[in-house]
């Protein structure tokens, strides 16, 4: 009996029934999207709306880059520029990063652990809609924030909104309130989804799926969900305090009444730094699935990978003040946060070596997901090294709030997170839509985006060294910054067609792509055992697993993994 038939008999569901012609009509689709509690539809809705906000926030970044092309440029007014970098940062973190990673979690967790849905499907839908409307609320500020005072427009206080910029005296009108309420709402949605992830992972695993046999993807999302429920409430708390300050005259951040502006920084970064790991650990999750499959080897050092992830999460709760070296802390504080920040590089380094160890001696296939993962490894290494540089407090005193920092965290979030998101989308696209993404368009996407990305952000390290502060809307001609800014801006216009190829690929392959089959990559985790796209109930019969690679066991009954684990 061939492995195909074994998989068929064990897991595959009967062909879904076709439900008449009205299925494709617009109202029918809209109705399905609004009422659905299906984790796969919600997952795709998360990713889709995340990509939508990504395009909007990306366009804002491009306009800012155009403004910085020439010194003394008048393309954007200063206040417009302030709104743009605030909206760009806030949107990219809360409306792009978070929803897309939650989308991956929603779509894949139940499939990977072999169950039919998330633990609380309606809470799941609630989480999505709360996120979605918090995004609309944030952008609605462009229309509504002027309010009766006709003062202000979109928020312009930066994505970390340092006090006292947000005080009533300095931020008139309602712009800051839109920012606050949107983040408060989004936080509730994130916590709901995170609780759902924890419960699903701990309580709904299929028979035989012990914690030690869960795919690393699931492990990492469990860790991320724990970070979300611990790190998100501090953000909500400081937003509540800010609202009390602005509307009831509380004195939390009012320095003239004994309040402290630095306390806001502490509270914000107690959330803000774990947030960075909330965003990058899902990137690790995707890389940990893609790299083994395309190296044709099981992941190297599974238990160490799990331990390193837990360690990263744990240490990340104690490094927040490295964002605040320039505030002027005690030397004890500086030392503590410098050392804890350096220590976090150790588990991260372990992970990079384990991925390399997985690839070492493997039979590497350079398909699209693998290309993006290799890009991720290189770029994330650079990001990690500049991170360690910035953890040295005296170095940070020189370069804090300069373009060096901008370059550093764009290498983390684009070179690290976004590349793995691309890898993940290409990897699971056949599962979600039953069609293969086009390799040719994907190659255009990869090369244009990679060249553009490095052109944009590599020179920013140098302009940072030359003293260019972040968030300035223009600069004088004699600073020696022009050439670096100009290369940077040109890079954006190489990235843009890359993104067009990506979006084009998603649409083109949906209609014209090759049929994918159930397991196009010859992978090992449970989501590939059901049909592509999976039926609403995922598995006709719930699977049972005996090792970390259940599909390998089925395909190779003569040499199953469980003999060696």
């Amino acid at each position, binding site marked *: 009996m061939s492995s195909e038939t074994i998989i068929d008999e064990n897991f595959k569901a009967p062909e879904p029934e076709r439900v008449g012609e009205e299925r494709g009509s617009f109202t029918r689709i809209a109705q399905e999207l609004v009422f659905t509690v299906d984790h796969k539809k919600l997952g795709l809705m998360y990713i889709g709306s995340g990509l939508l906000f990504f395009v909007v926030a990306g366009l804002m970044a491009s306009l800012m880059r155009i403004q910085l092309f020439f010194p003394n440029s008048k393309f954007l007014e200063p206040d417009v520029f302030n709104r743009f970098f605030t909206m760009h940062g806030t949107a990219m973190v809360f409306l792009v990063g978070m929803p897309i990673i939650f989308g991956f979690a929603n779509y894949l967790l139940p499939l990977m652990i072999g169950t039919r849905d998330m633990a609380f499907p309606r809470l799941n839908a609630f989480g999505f809609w709360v996120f979605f409307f918090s995004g609309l609320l944030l952008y609605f500020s462009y229309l509504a924030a002027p309010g009766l005072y006709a003062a202000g427009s979109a928020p312009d206080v930066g994505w970390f909104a340092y006090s006292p910029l947000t005080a009533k005296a300095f931020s008139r009108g309602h712009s800051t309130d839109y920012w606050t309420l949107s983040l408060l709402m989004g936080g509730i949605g994130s916590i709901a989804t995170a609780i759902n992830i924890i419960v699903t992972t701990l309580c709904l695993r299929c028979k035989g799926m012990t914690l030690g046999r869960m795919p690393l993807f699931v492990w990492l999302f469990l860790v991320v969900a724990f970070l979300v429920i611990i790190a998100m409430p501090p953000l909500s708390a400081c937003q509540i305090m800010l609202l009390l300050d602005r509307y009831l005259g*509380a004195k939390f951040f009012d320095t003239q009444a004994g309040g402290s502006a630095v306390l806001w920084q502490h509270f914000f970064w107690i959330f803000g730094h774990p947030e960075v790991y909330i965003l990058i650990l899902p990137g690790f999750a995707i890389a940990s699935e893609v790299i083994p499959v395309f190296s044709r080897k099981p992941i190297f050092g599974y238990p160490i990978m799990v331990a390193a992830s837990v360690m990263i999460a744990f240490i990340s709760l104690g490094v927040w003040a490295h964002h605040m070296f320039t505030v002027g802390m005690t030397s004890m504080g500086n030392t503590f946060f410098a050392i804890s920040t350096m220590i976090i590089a150790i588990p991260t380094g372990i992970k990079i070596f384990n991925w390399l160890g997985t690839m070492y001696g493997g039979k590497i296939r350079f398909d699209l997901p693998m290309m993006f993962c290799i890009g991720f490894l290189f770029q994330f290494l650079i990001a990690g090294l500049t991170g360690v540089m910035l953890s040295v407090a005296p170095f940070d005193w020189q370069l804090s709030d300069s373009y060096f920092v901008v370059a550093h965290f764009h290498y983390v979030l684009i070179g690290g997170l976004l590349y793995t998101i691309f890898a993940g989308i290409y990897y699971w696209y056949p599962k979600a839509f039953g069609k293969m993404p086009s390799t040719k368009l994907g190659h255009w996407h990869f090369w244009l985006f990679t060249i553009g990305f490095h052109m944009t952000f590599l020179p920013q390290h140098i302009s940072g060294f030359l003293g260019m502060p972040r968030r300035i809307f223009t600069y004088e001609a004699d600073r020696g910054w022009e050439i670096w800014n100009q290369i940077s801006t040109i890079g954006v216009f190489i990235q843009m067609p890359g993104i067009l190829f990506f979006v084009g690929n998603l649409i083109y392959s949906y209609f014209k792509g090759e049929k994918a089959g159930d397991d196009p990559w010859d992978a090992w985790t449970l989501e590939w055992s059901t049909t592509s796209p999976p039926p609403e109930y995922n598995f006709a019969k719930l699977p049972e697993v005996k090792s970390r690679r259940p599909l390998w066991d089925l395909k190779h009954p003569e040499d199953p993994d469980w003999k060696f684990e």
Partner: protein
Amino acid sequence: MINDPSETETPWRLPSPRKVGIISLIVTESALFTIFVVAYVFYMGGSLNGPYPSEVLEFPLFGTIALLGSSLTILAAEFMLKHLNRVGFLLWWGVTIALGAYFIYFTATEWWHLIYEKNLTISTNVFGSTFYSLVGLHLSHVFIGLLLLSTVWLLTLFGKIPKDHTEHIEMVSWYWHFVDVIWIVVVTVVYIISVRIPVPIS
């Protein structure tokens, strides 16, 4: 030859989703309270003008007894539920609700006193800001807990004791215990520690 693991393993057991869910909720709520407690502690003795905690705060004896006592009565109610004693359950659960409601009444009178007689509002000084936000956050949790308790009570009054819903009821009691534990922290920090700080001499 190693045996096929499925033949040797113990039966497959997983934790209850409700329990894991409520524990996660309690963890995330604790993180929220931690920040407000830290803010309170950070600003202790930081007010530039009065009134100060040692001048206006009195130990909320009856409120504390009511709230901590309600943690015991809810245990009694659960005991009755286990023995499927509907009247006993309604009685003890009702007493729990009454104690919770009394706590809210008690705090309301305390705040009335503070606002109208001692002139301490949320905008008076940092003590006012942190005091009302911390105690108020806890009060809002008591209120939510009361809503949950009342829902259970009314459902039981108009229906039967739902045998397959005992775990739901247990989860409500876990939340109520959590609200109690938070109150112990709040009382310690606000009414025991911060009132020891002397009024600054001006």
